[in-house]
């Protein structure tokens, strides 16, 4: 064949154009629309949301893209719909969604896209909308069937069902251990920080100096502040018995009012109501560093013999405890703020770490009803440790054997959150 001849060259060019055209037509016909498309109201939510589900297709690769089209219920033509999302065809699977496995509406290998309000989408509960999904690859586009769905709110979030079961189970366990503790003696390990409470109050009494008690940075809505207020009651009872001055500066007025009542009752129970001073609990300010400066000033001027730091703390923890340490006071801290624990451990004589703050009330009162709660917490911890251990073993076995069966158990544990 002599290609230099113009006739042969023209024929070759025509053949090339033919091959490319046929190839493109073939490629377009190979593009398939999303199959088994479903549009449903998003389950377990507050409404104003729809979920689109469709089966994996043969063209699910990074070159192809899915397009989610959304519009009013009256739309019958895909051209009237608005493209609200576009993503590679090998992404957005049901298994990637942050929902528990028992609430999934399709297999994990299916595609899922959740349409929510915002970014050009405005949905109202009770109004129907038209949704479809198109597959795009190059110039080709295959649109799925147009489906309608109506968003509506739900009354229960089944994703959190395991959470509810666990909470109820743990609550039941706590009440069982309380009733058990009423009938039996339960061993309580020593907590040096709480044993030192009497020592600290005794020292303050001997020196004739006051005791400073702080309830932390949070308000009464926080369990750590409630725990701090409960411990204050026990400490106040002993300061009343020893006739030692108690100072409780506050950052929050409601906490101050509650602590005033607790202190008053403690003095009544100790048989020393005449020693109670209304202004032993006083408000300083809600501002973090202004409060810190004021309490540091109190420490330096009044030189309390014992400082108690209970509750939650932030950056002020070291400023408070280091000043207290410089005055030579015996310092006892108790906090659930794990980020501040190193500072307390470094600068205080005794530190109640995390849960010990919540155990303090039981430890100081020695009431069976309180001690029973601690047994419940210990059993709860044993359950969590067992779950962690079993999960670790199963994950290791799954990787070592390549088997898929451990994944079933791991999914179960993974969704226990």
């Amino acid at each position, binding site marked *: 064949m002599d290609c230099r001849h113009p006739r042969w060259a023209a024929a070759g060019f025509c053949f090339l154009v033919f091959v490319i055209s046929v190839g493109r037509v073939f490629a377009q016909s190979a593009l398939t629309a999303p199959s088994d498309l479903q549009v449903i109201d998003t389950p377990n*939510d507050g409404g104003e949301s729809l979920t689109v589900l469709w089966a994996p297709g043969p063209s699910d690769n990074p070159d192809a893209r899915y397009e989610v089209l959304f519009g009013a219920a009256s739309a019958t033509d895909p051209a009237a719909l608005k493209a609200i999302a576009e993503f590679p065809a090998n992404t957005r699977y049901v298994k990637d969604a942050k929902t528990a496995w028992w609430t999934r509406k399709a297999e994990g290998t299916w595609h899922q896209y959740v349409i929510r309000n915002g970014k050009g989408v405005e949905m109202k509960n009770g109004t129907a909308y038209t949704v479809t999904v198109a597959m795009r690859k190059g110039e080709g586009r295959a649109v799925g069937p147009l489906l309608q769905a109506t968003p509506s709110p739900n009354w229960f979030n089944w994703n959190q069902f395991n959470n509810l079961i666990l909470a109820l189970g*743990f609550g039941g366990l706590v009440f069982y251990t309380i009733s058990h503790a009423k009938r039996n003696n339960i061993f309580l390990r020593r907590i040096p920080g709480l044993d030192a409470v009497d020592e600290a109050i005794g020292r303050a009494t001997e020196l004739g100096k006051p005791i400073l008690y702080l309830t932390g940075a949070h308000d009464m809505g926080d369990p750590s502040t409630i725990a701090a207020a409960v411990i204050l009651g026990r400490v106040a009872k002993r300061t009343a018995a020893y006739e030692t001055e108690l100072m409780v500066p506050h950052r929050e007025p409601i906490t101050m*009012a509650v602590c005033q009542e607790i202190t008053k*009752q403690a003095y009544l129970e100790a048989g020393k109501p005449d020693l109670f001073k209304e202004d032993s609990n006083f408000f300083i300010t809600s501002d*973090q*560093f202004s409060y810190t400066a004021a309490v540091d000033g109190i420490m330096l001027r009044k030189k309390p013999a014992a400082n108690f730091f209970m509750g939650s703390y932030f950056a002020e923890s*070291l400023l408070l405890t*280091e000043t207290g340490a410089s005055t030579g006071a015996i310092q006892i801290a108790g906090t659930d703020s794990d980020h501040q624990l190193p500072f307390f451990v470094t600068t205080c004589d005794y530190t109640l770490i995390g*849960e010990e703050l919540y155990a303090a009330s039981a430890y100081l009162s020695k009431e069976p009803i309180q001690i029973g*709660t601690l047994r419940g917490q210990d059993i709860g911890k044993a359950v969590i440790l067992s779950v962690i251990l079993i999960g670790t073993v199963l994950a290791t076995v799954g990787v070592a054997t390549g088997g898929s069966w451990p994944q079933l158990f791991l999914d179960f544990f993974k969704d226990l959150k």
Partner: protein
Amino acid sequence: MIFLRRQLPLLITMITGLLFAGQYYVPHPSSELLLTSATKWLQIIGGFALVLGITSLFHQHAVKIRRQEAGWGYSLVLYAGMLVTLAAGALAKGKESLDGAMTGFGWVYSFMLVPLQGTMFAILAFFIASAAYRSFRARSREAAVLLVAAVIVMMGRVPLGEYLIPLSGDVSQWILNVLNASVRRAILIGVSLGAIALSFKIIFGVERSYLGGGKE
């Protein structure tokens, strides 16, 4: 009276405690509305409680000034500062700037309060140094472990340290990601269980000492 002082608060605590524990599981907008309304109520109660707080503050410092206790001059400064700020706030209608110009209230905030807060925070650096010095004297085995771990982490977290001891970066990451993270998680598990148990005790009236009053 005992009903108003004991039973009624316990009843309110139980009902609201159960209601808002249940609210966590209900995604319906009316549930969200309930939470939002309760939050607003709390803000309003907090506003009224602030009056209690300020009354306490004024009373505390008035007594100090009257008795001329140690540091009573600071109480005078507090009174002066509070009154000047209140006056500046009232004049500026509580705004830090009006028509682009800084008000007296804004000036107090920007050039007095913020620098003072910054100063207090800056002191932290010196306090960390002194606390670290006392802790790292390696008097006990635990303190020695703390010292070694701290030196490795410090070296690994600054470019110069990692340049001098190249291995410190990886070792410090391991200390933070494995040792530190696992201990923190263990503490958090204990804290969470403790907080849940305390919440149960409060909701069902087992723990009542936060109300003041006896055990009846």
